[in-house]
């Protein structure tokens, strides 16, 4: 079963889907760019005029076919200023936004490991006389109800 699943996954994941349409490229690029005047919306989403301008420029770049997606984004960033990136950079203080989740993942996994380890070696102690009495009473009443039914 695992073999079938991985074969299907590999086949589906790697097969060639043909070239992307220009509109698909424009959509992909603009959804990585921030609209400079509208607080956190992407150019893809926004209908503000500043976003229209960037969208038109992206369409022109894609239409000319000279730049790749990443190059187009770099070009737009250079032309419209550094605030058009929706994705924080991975340098300087901005890299924290990427590093912290990874650190949190490692901490979480480590904490889980420690906790499971502790529990596995934990000694619950022997049951006290009270505990045994409780269990005996419960078993007795269960036997009683079972034999009645």
């Amino acid at each position, binding site marked *: *079963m695992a073999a*079938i*699943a991985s074969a*299907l*996954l590999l*086949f*589906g*994941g790697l*097969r060639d*889907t043909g070239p992307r*349409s220009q*509109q*698909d490229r424009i*959509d992909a690029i603009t*959804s*990585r760019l*921030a609209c400079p005047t509208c*607080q*956190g*919306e*992407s150019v*893809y*989403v*926004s*209908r503000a005029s500043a976003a229209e301008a960037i969208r038109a420029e992206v369409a022109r770049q894609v239409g000319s076919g000279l730049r790749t997606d990443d190059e187009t984004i770099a070009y737009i960033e250079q032309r419209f200023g550094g*605030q058009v*990136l*929706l*994705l*924080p950079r991975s340098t300087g*203080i*901005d890299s*924290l*936004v990427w590093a*912290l*989740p990874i650190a*949190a*993942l490692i901490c*979480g*996994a480590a*904490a*889980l490991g420690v*906790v*499971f380890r*502790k*529990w*596995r070696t*934990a000694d*619950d*102690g022997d049951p006290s006389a009270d505990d045994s009495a409780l269990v005996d009473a*419960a*078993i007795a*009443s*269960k036997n009683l109800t*079972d034999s009645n039914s």
Partner: protein
Amino acid sequence: MFAAGGVSSSIGRAFLLVGIIGSLFGALASISSARSRDRTVARLIPRFAILIFAAAVGAFAIMEYAMITRDFSMAYVQKVGSTATPALYNFAAVWSALEGSLLMWVLILAGYTVAVCFWLRKKMDDVLANWAMGVMFIVSMFFFLLSFGPANPFAVGAPGVFDGPGPNPLLQNHILVMFHPPLLYLGYVGVTVPFAFAIGALVTGRVGEGWLLATRRWTLFAWGFLTFGIILGSWWSYEVLGWSGVWAWDPVENASLLPWITATAYIHSVLVQERRGMLRVWNLSLLVSTFSLTILGTFLTRSGVLNSVHAFSESAIGPWLLTFFAVIVLVSIGLIGWRGDRLHAPGSIDSVVSREGAFLINNVLFALFAFVVLLGTVFPLIVEALQSRSITVGEPFFDQLVAPIGLALLTIMAIAPVLPWRKASSELLSTRLFWPAWCGVGALGISVVVGATGFMPLLTFALGGFASGSALRQVVMATRKQGLRGLVGRTNGGMIVHVGVILIAVALAASNSFTHSQELFLKTGTPAYFSGHSFELIKIVEETTDRAISVQALISIDGGKAYAPAITKYTKVGMNIGTPSVKTGILGDIYLTLEPPVKQDSGEAHIKVFIKPLLVWLWIGGFLMALGTLLAAFPGRRRKPTDATSALIGSNDVE
């Protein structure tokens, strides 16, 4: 000053003042009853609860009355009222800006307070119940104060105003404005109830399991409202905002998602505490985080610190909310520390491969999820504070980080439901996972055959199939044994919620990965083609009312019924709102938006077409989640307390 409006304002504020005083005395009565065990004092508590509810209803009614009678002497009516707003949207205009929405918060909170009090009416001499009521009253007092002071909805406006702009155009063009905000608030505010009991349990030291069981349904309903509110919000976004998306990772959306994540984690991990008595500190922390995140979210989005499409204008409530948030966190941490000795539970988890082990992993994933969302939301603030430059953390960031967490959650969702408590052998796992795993392979096979590509979406479909196999296995086994009763109860209802979640995950993966769009320039009589469909402009219709001018392009898809994307210009606000038109289908939606400029007589329209596969399953999944929550709230068949913890419910023979 002595005009009619001045009177309404004064009465409204008087109601709020009564609410403040009633909450104060309610809190005093609850706490003193808890300390002195004086039953005469305890009998006063319900009266104060009824009093503050009456005060809140009164204040809200005055606001509605002012809005309905278009009382433009009030500043709030000047801001969101208009003679041209239709009655329904005018009614909803009360919660369309900060002050009114806080008033609705007050109303719902007072409603919960009186409901909890009614529920506890026979237990008013119980110390824990008293403390819980005390917390409810204190929180109520805070919100009454907020509404009375910094966010006063009853302020008297400038004289000589006889009309206003009306609510934000987005809040007056779809019926959902009636349901999305109130439902979301029912969820947010509902979290106060389990929080109050958590604090009560900590103060009294009765941190055992009793109160958890007791508040289980309250938590479940609050969670259900939150879920349904969020889903209605995304439906609204899709049907109204016209950018073809359902979720934009906007700060306000994130603020509603954060408490949902921690509440979801709690709903799962509380089962470990019920069954095994463990994870007490963790569960209390989750409840406290959920409640404090609702306050933090309100602070972030309602104080002007972060801007978003949902943000209201700046106001003075920021410091209040931030202080309240700090107090909640400090008091809770202090209490948890103080009761640390009692919180330590005996017992241990034997194996990672067990139901409780899976719940722990689930909780770590949810905690990570919450952390990522919180970090992404506040990170621009941090950078701005440290380096005084602004950056944007947007959709791509969240998509990249949340997708793997989602896949991990789907994986655990596939395996956990078949795991027994305590320990599982590998033979047992392979027997129980056999059919669910084949469901996963089947889903993957179908996806590949219909042409899906890419590792992430394919993994989502495969794991979705696997996880729904596990969920359905539980439901099928339960209904075989118990008939229709196998559909109710926490486990079975929970599995139906799981199926809903899986449908949502699949719909999101499909629509995010395989959406295609195209701009089309249509001329009447000449159809255009995209993605195997034809689009023909029939005509352009213009309609003028006193509040707006609306231009619709009637477009026939595949020669069939006409769809009418529109652009509406709200004349008083001077804002253009595009309204999409969606042809919904089981396999995918065709989503049309009209792009400006449009001229009525030109016989031409510029439209954008989005083909969005499987999107309708998002709403079906949301409906299933709501249905499953309801089913889970009904008591199902319980395991006999004397049976082994691994025994199947409703049978004595172990599988």
